[in-house]
């Protein structure tokens, strides 16, 4: 890490709006999140729109011949990435509840999510 990076703590938000498997964005987004842990930044993950499907319990990718990366979400805690937020409106529109998700998250309204987004230094979306 460069000299001028250490010490700086910025608020990073990763915005996940895409479903898993149909495209690679969700998987590669998670790779960035894991790396960001090494930089001791203030990292938040938000899931809205089809991004909430990334956290759905019971994903089994064997028949589709793809790699199931959903267990990685359970490993985030070990990297001290603990701020996971899910938009209530997106969850409800998809007939899902918090019980359907494979990790503990904070469910919040669009308005609350908008407040949090406005406070970030860096917002990265894929």
């Amino acid at each position, binding site marked *: 890490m460069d000299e001028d990076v250490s010490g700086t703590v910025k608020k990073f938000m990763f915005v996940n709006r895409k479903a898993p498997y149909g495209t690679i964005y969700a998987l590669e987004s998670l790779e960035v999140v894991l790396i960001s842990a090494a930089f001791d930044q203030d990292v938040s993950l938000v899931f809205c729109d089809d991004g909430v499907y990334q956290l759905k319990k019971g994903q089994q990718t064997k028949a589709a011949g793809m790699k199931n990366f959903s267990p990685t979400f359970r490993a985030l805690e070990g990297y001290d990435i603990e701020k996971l937020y899910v938009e209530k409106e997106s969850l409800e529109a*998809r007939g899902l509840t918090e019980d359907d998700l494979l990790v503990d998250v904070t469910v919040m309204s669009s308005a609350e999510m908008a407040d949090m987004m406005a406070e970030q230094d860096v917002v990265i979306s894929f």
Partner: protein
Amino acid sequence: MLHIVNKSPFERNSLESCMRMAQEGSTILLTEDGVFAVTKGGVSEKALKNLMASKKISVCALWPDLEARGMADNVIDGVKMVDYGGFVDLVADSANVQSWL
């Protein structure tokens, strides 16, 4: 005729366009992120049910894609599950195919 839709109905307009042009007697197959359309409580549940009832359209979904997304237990009634072999049969049994990309 077989219509294939591989996009989430929440994200794109592909299924909507497909439904506008799917005729009586045709089949709609949902694949990839398109399978979210056949899940209970979603945005397309009502439209698909109406289509199946009124226009006698057969709605199928690729179960490997539902299973990958953890949605296999959450499918609306009347939707036929197919695997890749069933997908092949649907194409072979239809006079032609349109993919709503």
